[in-house]
């Protein structure tokens, strides 16, 4: 497929800017759409308005503290960050993790996948303008949030993994496992009904088919990962390489087209697969302790750990010196998918443009936090009076 980028010589009718605050975008980013008769010819997405530099803060912190800090990187995949950060240390230190702890980590990981995919679907439907679908998914997601609360003790920040296993409070007894199983049945039933209703809705399907296509070659060139890559037909899932998933049997879901429809259906089908993994985990969870506390802190070289999280591949890497973190790097899945978002919006109608960005499951909070409004001309921090509209007193 020919690359769909506007030639620089081409006359662009006008430029429409959106953001950094916009209801279709959950996070602050600035988009410049170069449009011609409401069709996006080129786009430029700018992020970084919330940059906090969490890797820099991690530098020199004790490993345990740094692990907890990584949980604050993202509000959606918080468990994934702490899991991978802990995993990095464990790989470096050669810590043996009890089998039961691995199962609990997988359970948390898959529950988080369900919650992230449901959030994605709900947000996607909201940007489509279909409030009812959006509400229904949020309704389903509540069940998952309750389960996460039950296991982790919190709805968002669970703090489940520690070096050597999981926290004892996250251990699962018979009652909790029964509750998990029961709730999953409910979620599966609701999700099946939703998927059936969604795919039969001709209006919704006509809105999402053929919109925001990312060709497979382009996705590979832009180093896209996770469900967004699999929605273009590439059968690549890092869970197949992770030792945590050795005892689980699951399919890698792919979709053929790489458009919004493929991306949305991708998440729906992957949610079923996540439920399948969870069922296996509940059924086969071994007895035993949940954490190995007898490990020794040693200095290590740079350690790298890759895991598959709901939005793609998460990469954590650091070295340990005197029990402290050195040279930390976190590459979140959104960072890998960033290039695709801009690309996907080119060629679509401007009402669909935000949808095309949303389809790649952006999560800019993964690296940026704390906003400061400033005037780039005078280099001063902006207050209310310097904004475009004046407040009358």
């Amino acid at each position, binding site marked *: 497929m020919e690359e769909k980028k506007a030639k620089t010589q081409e006359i662009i009718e006008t430029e429409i*800017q*959106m*953001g950094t605050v916009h209801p279709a975008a959950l996070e602050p980013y600035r988009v*410049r759409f170069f449009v011609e008769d409401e069709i996006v010819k080129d786009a430029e997405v700018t992020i970084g308005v919330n940059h906090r530099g969490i890797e820099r803060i991690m530098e020199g912190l004790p490993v345990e503290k740094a692990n907890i800090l990584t949980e604050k990187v993202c509000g959606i995949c918080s468990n994934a960050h702490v899991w991978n950060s802990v995993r990095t240390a464990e790989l470096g230190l050669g810590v043996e993790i009890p089998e039961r702890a691995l199962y609990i980590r997988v359970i948390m990981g898959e529950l988080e996948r369900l919650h992230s995919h449901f959030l994605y679907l709900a947000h996607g439907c909201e940007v489509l303008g279909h409030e009812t679908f959006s509400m229904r998914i949020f309704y389903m997601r509540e069940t998952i949030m309750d389960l996460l609360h039950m296991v982790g003790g919190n709805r968002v920040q669970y703090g489940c993994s520690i070096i050597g296993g999981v926290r004892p409070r996250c251990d699962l007894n018979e009652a909790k496992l029964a509750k998990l199983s029961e709730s999953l049945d409910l979620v599966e039933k609701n999700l099946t009904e939703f998927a059936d209703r969604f795919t039969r809705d001709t209006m919704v399907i006509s809105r999402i088919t053929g919109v925001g296509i990312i060709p497979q070659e382009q996705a590979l060139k832009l180093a896209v990962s996770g469900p967004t890559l699999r929605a273009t037909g590439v059968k690549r899932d890092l869970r197949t390489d992770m030792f945590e998933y050795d005892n689980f049997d699951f399919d890698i879901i792919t979709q053929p087209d790489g458009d919004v429809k493929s991306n949305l259906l991708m998440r729906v089908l992957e949610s079923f697969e996540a439920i399948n993994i969870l069922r296996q985990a509940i059924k086969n969870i071994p007895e035993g302790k949940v954490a190995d506390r007898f490990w020794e802190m040693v200095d290590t070289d740079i350690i790298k750990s890759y895991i598959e999280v709901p939005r793609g591949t998460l990469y954590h890497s650091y070295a340990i010196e005197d029990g402290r973190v050195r040279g930390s790097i976190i590459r979140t899945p959104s960072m890998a998918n960033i290039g695709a978002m801009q690309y996907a919006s080119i060629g679509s109608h401007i009402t669909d443009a935000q949808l095309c960005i949303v389809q790649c499951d952006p999560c800019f909070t993964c690296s940026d936090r704390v906003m400061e409004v400033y005037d780039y001309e005078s280099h001063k921090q902006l207050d209310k009076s310097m904004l475009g509209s004046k407040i009358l007193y």
Partner: protein
Amino acid sequence: MSYLTIVNSVLEVIILLLIALFVGVLIPGIERKYVHARIQQRIGPPVTSSGLWASIKFLYKENIKPNSPVPGLYKAMPILCFIVVFLVFIALLPLSYGFLAFASLIAIVGFLKVEEIAYVLMGSLSKSVMSAGLRFPDHVKGAERVNTLTSYIEDISSNRSLRMIAFGSFPLYLALFIPAAMCGSIFLGDIVSYQQVHGPFLFSLAGVLGTIVFFIGLMIMLNEYPFNIVKAKADVIEGPYMEFASKYRTFVYVTRGFMIFTLSCLYSVLFLGVAPGLLSLGFIVCIIVALIFVLFMGVFSAFSPVFTNRQFYPVVLVSSVIGVVGVILGLLI
């Protein structure tokens, strides 16, 4: 006309207006609480909060000077829209049927056109902070295409409103002329009296087609989901209304509810032959029609995504064709 008649008429108009406004501000609440929330299996907001209390609340909010080249004109637009809807409402009352040019379909079409043009003006006059108005370093070193012409998102809204005038409102106007075709007159008085003799137009094939087309036209006119491309949340956010705050937003809210009610009255007059008069069953019929419209609008909007041009054009085309068939059938009767 005696002095007493004039006083009586003025009093009647004021009382009817107050009732209409009250019903109008309750309409958004009814739609959100009893239609959307029920469909979406949630409790929903209190009925009075989204229309009535929101309107009152905004009266007490501090005002923001809109970022507009002509703020005065921009702020006058909601008031103009309100006046236009009020004029349509008066034209529908039985006491104005004597003023032939005023109580005719041509006048009503004219008034509604003013309303549509107001959207275009509002869109082009608003320059909010939500797009180019935000001081963000867009055209700096390293940026792509640094010397391009920039537009505000409200400009898109304005362009879309212009297209709406060209084709979007076509179904509504076609539906208005189906009763005219059936009774052979464009005067509201004639249309009502014809139906009082021959029965409501709704119970004929042309009337049913007219009702369908009128309903679609009504939703397009009100920029209701799924036809709300003029103020789609996915790109233009609130569109022309973005910069209205405080009492001007109250006007926007009140006008919207009032317009739903007025267009329902228009339907009652044209297709049921029932004129909204004080102390008559007609007014209650109008309220019931408004509630039925709200119910259907709520159901449609809850089950449909926003239409882009790809979906919008075919819907307008099909409903216009139905409208034309309705007019032809009306002429043949």
